[in-house]
C-alpha cells in the first residue's frame, strides 16, 4: 500500500462529517481541541472587554460611567469568565488538541466524552452570557461569600446563575480531567515509558489529577449554597446553626489549587517550548517533574492564606504562613531549571521566546509580591486592596497568559500548516508587555495607598486620580496589543503561504506528521526509544506515513489504536474507537435542561431530565457493545494484542476509577463540612452531653 492510498483509506475512516454538520457530531480530538480553544478565546475577548469597562470606570474619580449595580456585575463577571470560561478551558483545549499527537497515538481515551465536555462548557458559558446580556449577571464578587450571596442579601436570580452555570461548566472540567489522566497513562506510543514521556504530558497529568481533587469542594459548596438559597437549608446561616466560614474554606480549598491548576500547564508549555528555542534539551527533567508533583501537594495545604484576616488562631496562621512561603521552593526549582536550560543552550530571540521572556519578568515579580503577602502582618494591611488585585494579575497573566501566547505562536504553524507572513506579532508583544506593566505596577502602588478592591468609585481628595489614570491608559495599550495578537492569528490562518514541516526543529512527536494534522494523526504508530524521537530520526514522519509502524493497515472501517502498560510503555491492548455521533451534544443538552429547570425552579422537569440522561447514558454504552468475541489481533511489527473490550482492565475501568476519585473527594468535602460545622460553627445545635465541653 502506498502512502497516499493509506492516507485516503484512513481519512475515510477517521474524518468528521462534512460541512456544518461536523461541528455537532465530531468526536475527533483535533476538531474538539480547536473548538475548545476558539470558544475559550472568545470568552477571553469578552472578559477583556469587561476589564476595559472596569478601567474606564476607575480612570477618573466619581465616575458616572456605570452605576454600582452594573459595576458589581462587571467585575464579578470579569473574574468568573477569566477563571472558569477562559483559563481552565484553554488548558483543556490545548491538552485535548496536543496530547494524542505529542504522545504518539491517534485520539484520546474517550472521544465521545471529549465532545460531551465541550458541549457542557459551551451551554454553561452561554447561560452566563445570557444572564449578562439581560443585566441579571452575578454581582457578589467572583468568590461569592455568603451571607452576601445568600437569599437574604442577594434575593435576585443573579447568584443562581453563577452557582448553577459554573457547576454545569465544571462538568466539562471533570470530564476532561478523567479523559486526560487515562489518555496519558494508557494511550501512548509503544516504548514510551513514563520516564520518556514528553514533559508537557507530565504537567498535564498532574494538572488533571489536581482538577479531580480540587474541583469537587467547589462543586459541593455551590450545591450547598444553591440548596440553601432554593430550599432554605441553613448551611451558611449562622443563626440557624451554619457558618459562613465553611463557604470560604470550601471555596479556597478549590481556589488555591486552582492557581496551580493554571500555572502547571503553562509551565508544561514553557518546558516544551523553551528548550526548542534554545536548541537544547531541558535541564533536570527529573527535578522538574518532582518539583511539579511537590507543588501539586503543597498547593492543597495553603488555601487558608486567602483567609488570614478572618481571625483564625495564631498558631494556624504561623503554620500556613510557613506553608505559603514553602511553596515558593518548588517554583524556584523550576524557574532556575529553565534559566539553566537557557545557559546550557543557545537561545534565539524568536516570537515564542519573546513571550517566554515576558513570562520570566512578570512571573518573578508576581512571585515576589506573593512572598510578601504570605507574611501575615503585611497581608493584614494589603488584603482586599488593589495590591492583591495587581499581585494576582502578575501571577496569572505572567504565569498563564504569556506562556499560552508563547504556546499559541509555537503551535500555530502546526494547526494551520502555514508560515507567518505578516510581522505583527513582535509589535503586539511590545504593546502587551508595556501596557501590562504600566497597568499593574500602578495598581500595586494605589493599593499600598489604601485603595480597596471592588470599589465602584473614589473621591478626588483620596489622591489616587493620577495613578488610576496611568493604570487605565496602560490597560488600553494592553488591550490594543492583545487585539493585534488576535488579528495576527487570524491573518496567519487566512494567508496561503505553506510552511515546512517541523519549522522549529523540535524533537517531540507532534511534529512527525503533515500539518495541518490529518484526522488520524499518524498513518502508523511509532516505536519510541527516547524523549525526543524526532531528534533521533528526522525522517520519522516519512517512515510513519509509509506505514513502517504499528497499525499501518486500515481494516474493517475501524478507528484503531493501541494502549500501553502504564510504567514500561509496552503495548498491551488493541482499541476500537466509536465513530462520529450526535449523542454527546444531545446528552449535554438534556443535562442543560436539568440545570435550567433548577435555575428557573421548574421542578417538575427535573426528573424528566434525569431520566433522559440515564436513557442516553444507557444508549451511549450500548452502541459499543459486541455480540461476538474478538480474537487477539495482529497490530503490525510482529505483535499480537487482545482487544481492550475482552480484558478486565479496559480503559473504561480506568476512567471509572478516576471518576470515583473525584466522587470520593466530593463526599470527603461533605464530611469535612459536617465536621467543620460540628466543631467550629458558633451556632451549631447543641445536643446535650454529646459534645465535649471544650467545643461548646
Amino acid at each position, binding site marked *: 500500500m502506498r502512502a497516499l492510498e493509506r492516507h485516503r483509506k484512513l481519512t475515510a475512516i477517521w474524518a468528521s462529517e462534512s460541512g456544518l454538520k461536523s461541528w455537532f457530531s465530531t468526536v475527533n480530538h483535533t476538531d474538539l481541541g480547536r473548538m475548545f480553544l476558539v470558544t475559550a478565546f472568545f470568552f477571553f475577548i469578552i472578559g477583556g472587554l469587561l476589564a476595559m469597562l472596569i478601567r474606564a470606570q476607575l480612570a477618573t474619580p466619581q465616575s458616572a460611567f456605570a452605576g454600582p449595580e452594573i459595576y458589581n456585575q462587571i467585575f464579578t463577571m470579569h473574574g468568573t469568565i477569566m477563571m472558569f470560561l477562559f483559563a481552565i478551558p484553554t488548558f483543556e483545549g490545548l491538552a485535548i488538541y496536543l496530547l494524542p499527537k505529542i504522545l504518539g497515538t491517534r485520539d484520546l481515551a474517550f472521544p465521545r466524552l471529549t465532545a460531551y465536555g465541550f458541549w457542557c462548557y459551551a451551554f454553561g458559558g452561554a447561560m452566563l452570557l445570557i444572564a449578562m446580556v439581560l443585566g441579571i449577571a452575578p454581582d457578589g464578587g467572583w468568590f461569592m461569600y455568603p451571607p452576601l450571596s445568600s437569599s437574604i442579601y442577594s434575593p435576585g436570580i443573579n447568584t443562581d446563575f453563577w452557582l448553577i452555570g459554573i457547576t454545569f461548566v465544571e462538568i466539562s472540567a471533570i470530564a476532561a480531567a478523567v479523559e486526560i489522566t487515562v489518555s496519558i497513562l494508557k494511550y501512548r506510543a509503544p516504548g514510551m515509558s513514563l520516564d520518556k514521556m514528553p514533559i508537557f504530558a507530565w504537567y498535564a497529568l498532574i494538572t488533571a489529577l489536581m482538577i479531580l481533587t480540587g474541583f469537587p469542594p467547589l462543586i459541593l459548596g455551590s450545591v450547598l449554597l444553591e440548596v440553601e438559597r432554593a430550599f432554605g437549608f441553613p448551611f451558611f446561616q449562622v443563626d440557624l446553626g451554619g457558618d459562613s466560614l465553611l463557604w470560604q474554606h470550601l471555596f479556597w480549598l478549590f481556589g488555591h489549587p486552582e492557581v496551580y491548576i493554571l500555572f502547571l500547564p503553562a509551565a508544561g508549555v514553557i518546558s516544551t517550548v523553551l528548550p526548542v528555542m534554545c536548541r537544547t534539551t531541558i535541564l*533536570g527533567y527529573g527535578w522538574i517533574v518532582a518539583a511539579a508533583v511537590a507543588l501539586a501537594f503543597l498547593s492543597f495545604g495553603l488555601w487558608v492564606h486567602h483567609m488570614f484576616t478572618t481571625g483564625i488562631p495564631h498558631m494556624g496562621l*504561623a503554620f500556613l*504562613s510557613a506553608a505559603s512561603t514553602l511553596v515558593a521552593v518548588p517554583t524556584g526549582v523550576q524557574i532556575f531549571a529553565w534559566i539553566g536550560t537557557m545557559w546550557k543552550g543557545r537561545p534565539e*530571540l524568536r516570537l515564542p521566546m519573546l513571550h517566554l521572556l515576558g513570562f520570566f519578568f512578570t512571573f518573578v515579580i508576581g512571585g515576589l509580591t506573593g512572598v510578601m503577602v504570605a507574611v501575615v502582618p503585611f497581608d493584614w494591611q494589603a488584603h482586599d486592596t488593589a495590591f492583591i488585585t495587581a499581585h494576582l494579575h502578575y501571577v496569572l497573566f505572567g504565569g498563564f497568559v504569556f506562556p499560552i501566547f508563547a504556546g499559541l505562536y509555537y503551535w500555530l504553524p502546526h494547526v494551520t500548516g502555514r508560515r507567518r507572513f505578516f510581522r505583527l506579532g513582535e509589535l503586539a508583544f511590545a504593546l502587551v508587555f508595556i501596557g501590562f506593566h504600566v497597568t499593574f505596577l500602578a495598581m500595586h502602588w494605589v493599593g499600598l495607598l489604601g485603595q480597596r478592591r471592588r470599589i465602584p468609585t473614589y473621591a478626588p481628595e483620596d489622591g489616587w486620580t493620577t495613578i488610576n489614570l496611568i493604570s487605565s491608559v496602560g490597560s488600553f495599550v494592553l488591550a490594543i496589543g492583545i487585539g493585534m495578537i488576535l488579528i495576527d492569528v487570524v491573518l496567519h490562518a487566512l494567508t496561503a503561504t505553506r510552511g515546512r514541516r517541523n519549522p522549529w526543529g523540535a524533537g517531540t512527536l507532534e511534529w512527525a506528521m503533515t500539518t495541518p494534522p490529518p484526522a488520524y494523526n499518524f498513518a502508523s504508530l511509532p516505536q519510541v526509544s527516547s524523549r525526543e524521537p524526532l531528534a533521533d530520526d528526522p525522517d520519522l514522519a516519512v517512515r510513519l506515513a509509509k506505514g513502517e509502524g504499528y497499525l499501518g493497515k486500515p481494516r474493517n472501517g475501524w478507528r484503531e489504536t493501541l494502549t500501553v502498560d502504564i510504567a514500561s510503555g509496552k503495548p498491551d491492548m488493541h482499541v476500537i474507537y466509536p465513530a462520529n455521533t450526535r449523542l454527546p451534544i444531545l446528552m449535554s443538552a438534556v443535562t442543560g435542561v436539568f440545570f435550567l429547570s433548577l435555575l428557573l425552579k421548574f421542578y417538575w422537569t427535573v426528573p424528566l431530565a434525569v431520566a433522559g440522561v440515564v436513557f442516553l447514558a444507557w444508549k451511549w454504552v450500548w452502541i459499543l457493545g459486541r455480540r461476538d468475541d474478538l480474537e487477539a489481533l495482529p497490530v503490525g511489527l510482529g505483535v499480537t494484542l487482545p482487544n481492550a473490550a475482552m480484558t478486565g482492565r479496559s480503559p473504561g475501568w480506568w476512567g471509572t476509577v478516576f471518576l470515583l476519585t473525584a466522587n470520593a473527594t466530593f463526599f470527603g468535602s461533605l464530611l469535612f463540612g459536617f465536621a467543620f460545622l460540628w466543631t467550629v460553627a458558633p451556632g451549631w445545635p447543641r445536643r446535650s452531653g454529646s459534645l465535649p465541653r471544650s467545643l461548646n
Partner: protein
Amino acid sequence: MVLLMLPFRRAKSKHDERRQVRVWIIGLGLVFPIVVLAALLAYGLSIGERLLPRAGDDVVHVGAQGRLSNWTITYENAPDQTTEGTLHIPAGRPVDVAITTADVIHSFWVPRLAGKLDAIPGRVNVLRIEADAPGDYAGLSAEFSGTGYDRLIFTVTAHDAAGWDNFLRGDLE
C-alpha cells in the same frame, strides 16, 4: 534578570550537564530560596507575635459592629454611649476592638493603626490598635458588601487623656 540576558551573549557553555544541575537546580533552585524564605518567615512571625492582643491593666475595650449602613461602636467603660461611624479612643493606650457584624461579612481596617480583621456572622474577632498621638484616623470597611460598599468608611478619633475623660462622661465637644 541579568541571569536571563546573559545566555544570549555568551558562547555555548562547556560544562557538563551534571555540574549544571548542581549549580542551577540544587544551588540556586533549592538552597537559595530556602535560606531567604526561612529568614523572612521568622521575621514575619515575630512581628505578627508583637501585634497580638495581650491582657494588660490599661487596655480599653470597645465593640465595633459592622452593618451595611455603618459601623456601630459600643464602649465598655461607658455602657450608655453608642456612636455611629466614629470610634473614640484614648491616645497612647492599647485598645481592643471586638469586631462583630449584624448582617454580611465586613472587615475592620484603620490603615495607620493596624491591619484589618474580618467581621464574621456569629463570631467575635479582637483587634489590638493603638494611636500614638491624638487626632483623626481614617477607617475603611475592606470586604466587598454589595452596592454602597465604597461609602462604608468611618473615623477613629484619638483623644488626649482629658478629652477621653470628657468623652466617657458624655461631654462631646
